[in-house]
Every structure is written in structure tokens, then in C-alpha cells.
């Protein structure tokens, strides 16, 4: 089946992918009611775009599928968006000369403009047994469904980053006995210092999750093609489910094959335009080359805020406003692990010449650390109560001299003298 130009003569916009960036892009595109495109969205997943960040909540059972749905099917209908979902609508080729997208099911879609929102793919760990059944990643609704089918038993989660911890916590809540295997000395090692990492580990251990830190995965062990455990240095951990959270990489196979200029991601300019001016990207698949200003920068995107900014810029551009460009802003780590808030930003591991102030209320599940240089904040780490994270961020970015508020600084903005 072929999709031809619409009788009304509207230009055709095809969007590949229906993740969070894509949905935000569509929202922006239709927000003003001025959209003059006929929009087709191709999604390989079986349901309309959902909040991927909340998959861990879904896993933990604290929300249901409706609760993470970004926009209902009815909304797409109301906007006149043609939303095509499922394996058949997985885009498998872009023919740029014909300005046409081909799907797995053999359908072709002509476009005037194409927006690529293919997101990223989870990394694998190249050890024996990676293809065993029951070795999963944690990326999609389908992954969550597989985990939920795993039942009670023992689970091993590889990776002690945010996703690993949330996955472990969710599985534990679902009744599994969970061990998190990490090659770092403590959980969230890139976002926390030793003390905060220790607090987090202790807290999670208190919730029944076991840790193997500074451990290397040697192999997945299986019986009859199904995983039954993992071998780490000198220890065998039985497991009926192994979830691998080892980071992600931009999902760009489609773009590479279409001859778009790619590096780790598909290369875009500040307006999210690829090497083909009719093709834009939104989200984690993009890699932005910044030339203006100081030294050249190459950015990848893993957080939702810049992705949403992508969505705004591309939507504006398609609506005729070509002046919006992406300006990178430092983004602090500001997240919640199993209900525990964390915030870190800047150089929160001090060097010898830095000044450090700490507030340790571990017994209340709270820890704060500020690293200072010349009376200016250089790094922030907040554990448990992160109320003032964004305020510290501002002070850090603006290079504010904190001498006059030093006595109260660590307690937060609310405690400054009026």
C-alpha cells in the first residue's frame, strides 16, 4: 500500500518514532492550531508514546499503563495525526532521492519533511550467553512485560546506575530477590560521592536489594537456552532473570544506511537539521556539532530537558520560525531513585585546593555537600532533600560570591536572612 499526496495539497510530514521527544514535538506542532502538514507517525511499538522514564514506576506497580500514557489515541485522532503502530510500521529504509520511507510491512510513505526520533538502543555486554532467553534490557514496555512475566525467583541486574537501581527496586517490589552487580565501587558512582553512594546502598540494602560492587560480569549461564545465573569474579549468582543496564547508544542504523552524516549519532546543526535539510531529528539519536562561540563541541543527549528543547525547535522551524537554535545549558543530575531524591552538579569531588562544606543528616536520609573555590560554588551534591538544587545551580552558574551567606548556605535559600 502506498500513501500518496493528500487531495487537500498539504505538505507531508513523516515522523519516525513515538517516544517522549516525538510526542512533545507533536504537541508543540499542534499547540498553536497552525499546523499545515499532514502528519504521519510511524512507531514500531504497539501503543502510543508513553513516558519511558516512568517505566520503572510501572515495573514497581506504582502506576498503570494509563498513568504513563503521554497522549491518548483520541488526541492523535483529534489532531488528524495518522499514528501507525506495530512491528509492520517499523521504518526500515529511507529513500532520500524519492523522499520516501519504507516500513517493515512494505508500506511506503512519501514525505516533504522527515523528523527522526528513533531514540537509542541499550548496550549489550559482550560476554558469553548474552543471547540467552531471560537476559533483557530495560528500555521499553515490552521489556517491562517480560520482567513482569518472570514471576518471583531471583533476579540479577547488571549496572548500578539509575536505571539499574530503579529496575532492581521495581523487581524487588514485585517480589523478586534482587542482586545488583556493578563494576563501580558504589551505586550511582558518576553522580554521587563515596558518602552519598554509601547512604544510597545502605538504604537500598534496607529494602532488600543485595549489591556486588566493583564486580566484573564474566558470563551469563543458561540451561536449555534460558538464563539460570551469572558468573562474576569468583561467585556464581543464580538468576531466572538478568536485566542489563549498561548504558545506551543512539539508534542510527536507519540514518547511516540513508547516507546521512553520522558519528556516534546522526549529526545535526543547532536547528536539529541533518545533512539533508529536509530531515530533522529530535532526541537521543542526534549528535549536535556546535561551532559557534568557543571551541567546537559535540553533544549527545540523554536527558529529557534538552530533548524537549529539540522538540520545540523543530516544531517551530516547521511552522516557519527558523530562528530558534539550541543552546546547551549545563544540566545537573536531578533525579529520584526509588523515592530517594538526588541532585549533583559541577565538580562535587573536591581537589586539594577546594573548600568543602557538608551537612550530614544521614539518620534522616539527608546529605549535602558543597565544593567551593574562591567563595564560589563549584560543585553540588544533594542526597535525600534536593529542594535547593536548582538554587545552588544558579549560584554556581552565575559565579556568585557566597561569603555573606556562607553560614546558612548549605541549609538552603529559605534560611537566608531576608
Amino acid at each position, binding site marked *: 500500500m502506498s500513501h500518496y499526496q493528500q487531495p487537500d495539497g498539504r505538505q507531508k510530514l513523516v515522523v519516525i518514532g513515538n517516544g517522549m521527544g516525538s510526542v512533545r514535538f507533536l504537541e508543540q506542532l499542534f499547540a498553536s492550531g497552525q499546523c499545515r502538514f499532514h502528519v504521519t507517525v510511524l512507531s514500531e511499538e504497539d501503543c502510543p508514546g508513553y513516558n519511558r522514564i516512568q517505566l520503572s514506576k510501572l515495573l514497581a506497580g506504582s502506576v498503570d499503563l494509563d498513568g504513563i500514557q503521554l497522549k491518548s489515541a483520541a488526541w492523535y485522532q483529534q489532531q488528524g495525526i495518522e499514528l501507525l503502530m506495530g512491528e509492520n510500521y517499523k521504518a526500515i529504509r529511507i529513500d532520500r532521492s524519492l523522499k520516501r520511507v519504507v516500513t517493515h510491512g512494505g508500506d511506503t510513505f512519501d514525505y516533504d519533511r522527515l523528523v527522526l526520533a528513533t531514540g537509542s538502543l541499550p548496550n549489550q555486554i559482550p560476554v558469553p550467553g548474552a543471547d540467552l532467553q531471560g537476559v533483557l534490557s530495560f528500555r521499553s514496555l515490552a521489556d517491562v512485560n517480560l520482567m513482569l512475566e518472570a514471576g518471583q525467583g531471583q533476579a540479577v541486574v547488571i549496572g548500578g546506575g539509575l536505571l539499574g537501581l530503579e529496575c532492581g527496586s521495581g523487581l524487588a517490589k514485585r517480589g523478586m530477590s534482587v542482586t545488583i552487580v556493578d563494576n563501580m565501587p558504589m551505586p550511582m558512582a558518576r553522580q554521587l560521592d563515596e558518602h552519598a553512594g554509601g547512604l544510597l546502598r545502605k538504604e537500598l540494602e534496607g529494602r532488600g536489594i543485595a549489591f556486588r560492587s566493583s564486580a566484573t560480569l564474566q558470563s551469563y549461564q543458561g540451561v536449555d537456552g534460558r538464563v539460570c545465573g551469572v558468573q562474576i569474579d569468583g561467585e556464581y549468582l543464580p538468576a531466572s532473570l538478568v536485566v542489563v543496564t549498561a548504558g545506551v547508544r543512539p539508534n542510527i542504523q536507519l540514518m547511516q544506511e540513508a547516507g546521512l552524516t553520522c558519528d556516534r549519532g546522526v549529526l545535526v546543526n543547532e536547528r536539529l537539521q541533518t545533512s539533508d535539510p529536509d530531515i530533522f531529528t529530535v532526541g537521543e539519536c542526534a549528535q549536535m556539532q556546535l561551532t559557534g562561540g568557543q571551541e567546537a563541541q559535540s553533544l549527545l543527549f540523554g536527558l529529557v530537558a534538552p530533548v524537549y528543547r529539540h522538540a520545540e525547535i523543530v516544531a517551530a522551524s516547521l511552522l516557519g520560525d527558523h530562528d530558534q537554535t539550541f543552546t546547551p545549558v549545563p544540566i545537573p543530575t536531578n533525579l529520584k531513585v526509588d523515592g530517594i*531524591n538526588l541532585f549533583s552538579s559541577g565538580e562535587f569531588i573536591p581537589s586539594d585546593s577546594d573548600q568543602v562544606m557538608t551537612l*550530614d543528616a544521614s*539518620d*534522616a536520609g539527608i546529605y549535602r555537600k558543597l565544593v567551593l573555590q574562591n567563595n564560589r560554588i563549584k560543585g553540588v551534591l544533594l542526597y535525600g532533600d534536593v529542594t535547593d538544587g536548582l538554587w545552588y545551580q544558579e549560584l554556581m552558574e552565575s559565579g556568585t560570591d557566597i561569603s555573606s551567606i556562607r553560614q*546558612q548556605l548549605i541549609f538552603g535559600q529559605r*534560611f537566608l536572612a531576608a
Partner: protein
Amino acid sequence: MTVLIQANIMAVNQLAKAINTTCAYCGVGCGISARVVDPELHLVEITGREDHPANYGRLCSKGSALGETVSLDGRLLYPKVHGRQVVWSEALDQVASRLQETIEEYGPDSVAIYGSGQLLTEDYYVANKLMKGFIGSANMDTNSRLCMASTVAGQKRAFGSDTVPNTYQDLELANLLVLVGSNTAWCHPVLFQRIRAMKEQRPDMKVVVIDPRRTETCDLADLHLAIKPGADVLLFNGLLAWLADQGALDQDYIEQHCQGFDQALEVARASVGDIQQLADACGVEQNELIRFYHWFCTTDKTVTAWSQGVNQSAAGTDKVNAMINCHLATGRIGRPGSGPLSLTGQPNAMGGREVGGLANQLAAHMEFTPDDIARVRRFWQAANMAQSPGKAAVDLFKSMDRGEIRFVWIMGTNPVVSLPDSNRVIKALKKCPTVVVSDCIEHTDTAEFADILLPAAPWSEKDGTVTNSERRISRQRALFPTAGEARPDWWMISEVAGRLGFAEAFNYSGSADIFREHAALSGYENNREGKVRDFTIAPLANITDSEYDALEPFQWPLSAVQGDGSGALSDTQPVISTTASKARFFKDGGFFTGNGRANFIATDVLRPLNAPGKSYPLLLNTGRVRDHWHTMTRTGRSARLNQHTDEPFLAIHPKDAESYQLRDQALCQISSEFGKAVVRVQVSDAQRPDEVFMPMHWTRQHSETGFSGVLVNPVLDPVSKQPDLKYTPVAVEPYHTEQYGVLITRERVAFGGIDYMTEVRIENGYRYEMAGSNLGQLSLFSGLNDYQKVEFTDNTVGERRVAWFSDAQLQAIWVSSQAISSCDRQWLQFWFCQTASIEEAWWVLSGKPPRGEDAGRQVCACFGVGEKTICRAIAEHGLSDPVQVGSHLQAGTNCGSCIPEIRGLIKRG
């Protein structure tokens, strides 16, 4: 012992019934109505007694908080000999045998009693009687020596008797009220309230305050003369000369009722020079001086009231006479709204004077004259009458230091703190072979040197009478049964007297017995055949116990009047109803001198004995603060009373602070020829330059270094022997230390070896302000190890703050820093009293109250929006879905993770 038991039963029966009694503090003598709420827990509600003529229902901050000071915490409840708890009989045997042995070996003048204006008249009477009539020495002096000896001496010189000619009402009736050396607002607050009320009612009434410091009293003043310390005599000499020059004298009064005027005027004139010289010498503006003189000159209804600024001076007696001279010269004495009025410091300084509690008085306003000695001997049937005055306070401790006094019984006072050159007092007490201390508090600076400690009944447990500054005698009544083995002082003294073989003369079964004897002595030969004396309450010599129990406040002198004209009293008629008080003295002369004339006293201006110089360039003044009393044994226990002034301080003029590099709230060291102190600096332009002020209240029980007694010079008024506590040359310098610390705890902590430490009683605990080195090493922290802890460290600036929690309460807070912490103590203390878990109050270590509203637990991490903020927005704007919340607060508009929570908050409403 029967009496005590009766008293106990009585107190219990009065449960929840209002008990009329008298305030424990200053000489105003306010009537109190006390309602015991829980006798076990010593809970009592205190209100002002509406029908008491001293206060008519008013009370000051201290009086109102009396209920907070009557717990058993810190009480001395059992007799102790060298620290060992003993039974009464053993303690009393020890006292008696040591007394006996000392007298036998060294004579009666080797023993002494040092009493207090806190004693009741009955206690005082018995102590005085034992010493002066039966031991045979007049070494019975009292802390009243530090309070109003100069007024006693001045009044006796002028009037021939220690007579207060006027009443409180005159403060209200006056058109000109001159307050000299009196911070009435803080030290006699209820009189100040009365004056304020009258001034509001009659704005024309003028108030002049004469005080080197701009005190709170100046708030009411039309004119404040901030005279140089000690210039009072000169100022009133100048006034006398001015009155003469302006023809404002009452020649008739002077001629008919006085003597010595010409010489007094001559000496006055000679001392003052011209008006500009006079103003300069007084340190005031000439036009202000003239204004005061003019007002005095032209205002018939003038009251001059004074207090310790006059009395505690090397020229105190002369100051009193210089003021009285001006009143005699204008005939303004003992008239409504006109006269001199001394405001005494203590609740029963006047009662002490009435029984003869000073070493130079005999008893009942009788002196050491052969006639009076014989009269009193007859009345007492005394075995060993003292023949001459004994040693007054400062001399008494000096002779103890010289080894002459070998036995001392200190009753209800704390001379180690209150006497000048207190290091020498300590030396003397260490030397004295027997030191007996009767007190209601176990640990005082003086009790530390006691060989024998006797538990005395405190204010709330004793029964008797007190006399206020206007000669008004009021009952003080027990609110609780005596606690532990506590006993009234009169009982202890009588028991000792009995053991010395004087049982018959000290056979009292209760305070009423003593009161009757005291009243009888006041009337004994008080007539032309004997000697006419001002003080008499003779009609009460036969009152019954129940009449005594029900005795209403009355002024002395009290004389009998004919009831129904028949002269016969019915049996049921109370004695008091057939008596009349005399409110005022001397309107028509009638002085108690030999010839009935008042004496003008020539008051020459003397150079100070100890003047500021190169080494000690500043002048130290000492005094009270509003909410503390004496050595804080009572007020120190009230958290409320500790809020007004919680640490000892040095008030210093900004210019001096700058010259000596003292910063406000920093620590400074003060040194005099006699000792050193370290206190907090309070920069204040209420001080005159070159003069500093330090409160008198702090002791070694509350502070390591903050007491004034060690600094003060032991210079005495030559007539009254009252020490000059307000004129000591000192030097000041900044006090540098490595660390400062603040500790708030539930339990009292004993510290030693810290450079600076002051203990402050707070609600549910104590606060310690400290300075020194290695404060972090304090051993106290080990006891807190099991508690939950919050710790803030900023090593670069040496800041460390720790809070310990358990049982949903703060258990302790520690703040140490290189500079004095700016943490808000009141706020920390507020949280110390709250129920708050570590999760709810971890931020208390900020030491500063937050502003704005608490955002609550964070819900939206992306935009930092808290639960409480969201709930407030939902309520305020009636928001019904997360999108609306997002448009108001941005919450949930980024990653959206918090949207389910926001939805939950909306649902919860």
C-alpha cells in the same frame, strides 16, 4: 515541731484556695495572691493582689514568674556537715558546740552572723536577739549593708531616727518627681508602673531622672541629668544654694523644726562655685541643670526618691543628707506628694532595720546607748548584752581574713558574690574555722565554703512578716509544706540558742510568738519616761495566732485608738481594727533628735578614694538587670526570666569601644586592682564615655568569669560603712580566643577549665555559651553517641554544628566556630522545646529561622517544587488537574515523573 506540722496541714488545706502573700523580690513589697495548683509538683499560679496598697494587683516580670522558681530542683533539703548528710540534731549540736568553743576560747567578738534582707522579720529578730543579747557581740550584720545602710545613716543623722517620712502614694501625688540613682523601671517596676500611669493621667507631672546611665527609667523622664558618677552631693548642694538664692526656702519650717541650716548652706555654697563650674563639675549642660533647679524651686509637691545609685557610694550618706537638706529647707517633708523617699532593694531590708539587723543598731530602732542597752536587756532578760556596735559587712569579712572572726553563720545570702573584692572574701571564708550557711539552695558560691549547711525554708515555704519601703508590714505565707528537712531560720537559731543554755528566752512555738515579742519590744518604754521612738507596732503585742494568720498589710507606726469610746475592747474585735497607722512623718516637725529638731548636715564634696588613672582609666558601675535578682539562685531557674538578659555583659560607650577595639557581642576582659572578669561586650550609647557598666547577678554557678564582685573596690562610706559598688577604676581589652561554642542540652553539664562559660536556664534545659580552645574535645559528646545526629561542617572557617535527636525531640545542639556564632539562640531554643523528629527538623542547624513558607518534600525535581507549595496552589486556585498545576508552578512539565504524585495531591484535596 508541732507548729511545723500544723503549718503543713494548713498549706495542704489551702489547696487551690488563694493564699495572700508578699513578693520575694524588691523593696516595693507587692501583694501576691497565690493559688497552689499541685502541691506535689510545686505548681502555683501567681497573680497580683488587687487590694494590696503596694501594687493594687500589678506585678512585674520577676514577680509574675515566681511560680517558675519554686521547684525542688537544686534545693538544699538536708543538713550537711562537711558534705555529709546528717540529722538535724547532729547539725545543730555541731553548730552550738563550735559556737560555744569559739566564744570560750576567743571571746564573743570572734563569732558573727551575716544575715540578709531576704530573711523574714521574725527570723531576723531571733538572730539579732541571740547575737546581741545572749552571745554578747554585735557582730550581726546583713547584706542590707550593701543596700541601704547609707539611707539609714543619712536619715538618722537628719531625723534622729531611721524613718521613711513618706509613702508610695506620694510618688503619684507629686507634681515633680526626682528619681536619683534609681533605675525604677527595672528595679522597682511596679512603682514605675504606678508612676507611668499617673504621668499618663497627668502629663503635666514632671519626672527628672538623675543617673549617669540612660536607663529604661528615662523613658518617662522630662529631663535626664546624666551626671558624673558621685556628683550627687554637688548637685544637691547646688540646689540648696539655688533655693536660698531664689528665696524659695521655707524659713518658718527651718526656724521652727530644724537646726544647722546656716552651716549646711555655707558648706554647700563653698562647694559649688558658679553655675557653669557647677554644671561642668556635674557633667551636665548648664541649661538642663537650671531647668531642674527651677522646677524644684517652683514645685511645692516634689518627691525625691532614690535607690542604690545614691546608697552604694563612698559618699552615700552625704548624698542622702544633701537631698534631705533640700526637702527640709523647703519644708517639703511628710506631706502628700512631697518629701524624700528611699526605695529599698530587698523584700525585707526594712524589717531587718526594724529589729536591729545591722551591726550598729541594737533592736527596735534603739541604739547602742547605755539607756537603750539597759532597756533591751530588761526586756529580753538578756544574759550577755553587746555593749557597742559590731563589725559591718566588709569589715566583718576583713577581720575574718585577719583571723579575728573564727565562726560565721551566713543566712540566706551570698557574700562571695555580692561583697566587693570578693577574692578576699573567699580567702577569709577559707581561713575561718567554722562557716555555717543556712540557705534554701544547695550550691551557691558561698555554700562551697561551708563546713555546715543548714536547709532553710525558702520564700514559698516560710511564714512571717516583711516590711516594704513605705513602712508597710505584710504577711508572707507558706504556699507549700516545707520540703525535705527544710526549716525556718528562726527555728534553727532558737534550737542553737537552746543548746547554748538560753532555751527559756528562745522558746518560740511559731512565728506569731516572735512577732508578738517584737511588737512588745517596739512599745517597750516607748514613751517620755523611757524613750520615744518612731517604730512601734505595740498594739499587736497580744494578737492571737489566728489574728496573726489573718493579718492584713498595715503601715507602722501603729497606735491604739479607742474602739467605741468606752475604751473597752470586745473579745471578738480584732486588734488591728482598733489601731491607727501614721502614713507620714515630720510635716509639723517632731523629729526623734534630742530636741525634736531635724539636723541639716553640712555635706562637703570629697575626692574619691580610688579614682581612674593610667592603669585603670575607666569607671565601672554595677547594678541590676530587669529580670534577674541578686545572685540568680531564684531567677536563674526561670527560662522566661533568662530571656531578657541571658549573659553577663559590659556596657560601654561606642567611642570607648572603638578606642579599646571592642566589638559588640565579642568578649572582653575587664581588670581592676582586685581581679579580672571576662564578659560579652554590649556597645551602648546609654553609657557616658569613660564609664562602663556590668550587672551584679552572675555567679560561679552560672558563669566561669562573669562576676563583678571580684573587680569591685572595697571602698566604704565612712559613716554608713556601705561599700561603693558603683565606682571602681578598671581597664578593658578585647578577649581573644580560638573557638566559640554554644551548647544546648537537656541536662546540666559541669565544665571546668574553659576560658569563658555562662550557663543560661532555658525551657526544658540549659544553654552554655563558651569560649576557649579545644572546645570540640569536650567529654560531654560521648554521652550522645546513641542519638541520631545531624552535623554541619565547614572546616575552612572552622564551623561545626551538631544536633542530636531522639524520641522525636532535639536532645542537644552544639555550635562551634572561630567567631562568635550568629545562630539565633531563641530560635534554636524554640525548636529544642518542640516535638520534632530528625526528618522534620534537620535544618535547625541553620541557626536562623526560615523565611517564606516551607516548600515541603520535593515532588517535582526538575523545577524544585515541593509538596506543600503544590498543595497551597491547589487550594488557592482550585486546581483540578496536573496540567493546571504545571501552568501555575511548572511542576510536572519537564520529565513528568511527578505527575502521578501531583494527581494524588489533587485527589487528596
